[in-house]
């Protein structure tokens, strides 16, 4: 994106390469995506509406596909994935009617063609998240539903601290090594700004435990989730940095069994494309009855002139 208003935090090409590279071994590392796919599916159970045409945005290897395929009322399921290599894998699951390779920041879907857009841990690498949400809102039919799971600000908090302290010790400075993630409050404001009605945001915190921090590093690589911050230190990090970070991690966080925890915060964003049938607040000053009368029926109406709203 060349838009000067867009803050460019992530190197999208590099992230795409990382996702491409994750494709051959994807199914060994997709446990988090499978877990959150189940949670997203459960959230759809709470909604009585049926969604005939659905899009799995950032579908990666297709963890969500089988869940969506089984949903009653679904007739067409599309997948959209930044990495062509992963898109091929998603297509190979047979759960999707079609899969396209596309950038979440430049969606190739026309106006009002979809009933549901659902995204499983894919939007946290977008530079222009507001833009991506606006495009999603446009691609939905009126009263279409948007549901996204994103990594939130508390994710990898242990690793963030350990890498920072290790980098100070080993290299004498700090550089961005863990992505800045969106916070819960920001997410709500973003949904509203993108034009979604009835926005709802909440979060889940999961803890994944590992034998040692190197297993965590390997998992992040396997998920294609390693550092793609544009401003990252461009020279390869010395091995000593990760050894030191791992040592600090084990020292500070290891449980009695010696395993280390990694916190993963998942933020769920939900909203509806605006439609006339949705409830909305009345205009201020349009009330027909005084609040005072409702709260205190004994009060004489009109006893306090000028106080009625």
């Amino acid at each position, binding site marked *: 994106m060349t838009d000067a208003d867009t803050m460019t935090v992530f190197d999208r090409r590099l992230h795409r390469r990382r996702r491409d590279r994750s494709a051959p071994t994807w199914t060994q590392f997709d446990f988090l995506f499978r877990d959150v796919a189940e949670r997203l599916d459960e959230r759809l159970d709470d909604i009585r509406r049926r969604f005939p045409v659905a899009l799995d945005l950032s579908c990666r290897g297709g963890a969500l596909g089988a869940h969506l395929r089984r949903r009653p009322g679904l007739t067409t399921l599309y997948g959209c994935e930044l990495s*062509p290599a992963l*898109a*091929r894998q998603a*297509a190979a699951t047979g759960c999707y009617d*079609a899969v396209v390779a*596309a950038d979440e920041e*430049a969606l*190739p879907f*026309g106006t009002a063609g979809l009933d549901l857009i659902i995204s499983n841990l894919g939007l946290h690498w977008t530079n222009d998240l507001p833009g991506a949400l606006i495009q999603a809102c446009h691609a939905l039919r009126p009263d279409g539903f948007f549901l996204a799971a994103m990594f939130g600000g508390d994710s990898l908090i242990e690793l963030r601290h350990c890498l920072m302290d290790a980098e100070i010790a080993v290299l004498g400075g700090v550089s961005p090594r863990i992505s800045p993630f969106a916070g819960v409050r920001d997410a709500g404001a973003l949904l509203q700004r993108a034009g979604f009605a009835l926005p709802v945001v909440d979060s889940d915190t999961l803890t994944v435990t590992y034998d040692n921090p190197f297993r965590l590093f390997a998992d992040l690589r396997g998920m294609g989730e390693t550092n793609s911050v544009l401003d990252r230190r461009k020279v390869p990090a010395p091995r000593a940095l990760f050894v030191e970070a791992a040592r600090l991690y084990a020292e500070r966080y290891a449980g009695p069994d010696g395993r280390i925890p990694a916190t993963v915060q998942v933020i769920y964003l939900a909203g509806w494309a605006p439609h006339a049938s949705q409830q909305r607040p009345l205009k201020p000053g349009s009330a027909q009855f005084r609040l005072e009368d409702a709260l205190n029926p004994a009060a004489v109406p009109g006893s306090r002139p000028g106080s009625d709203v």
Partner: protein
Amino acid sequence: MTDTKSDPGSNVDPKLLEILVCPLTKGPLRYDPAAGELISDRAGLAYPIRDGIPIMLVDEARPLDSDPITDALPPR
């Protein structure tokens, strides 16, 4: 990955073609089954279709004024 060129004749879901637009201009796309490309006249780009997957990435698209034969060869 080895399959850098479009594969002509690969089938695209017709319903998908109805809702796909150019990601750059949000304008209409023209399907060229012979070349296996989706063409955005407004953007002057042809998006390849590989293994039945439309690659709607601007930096993977072929500029329309260039020669499709040489462009179909893998870059590098």
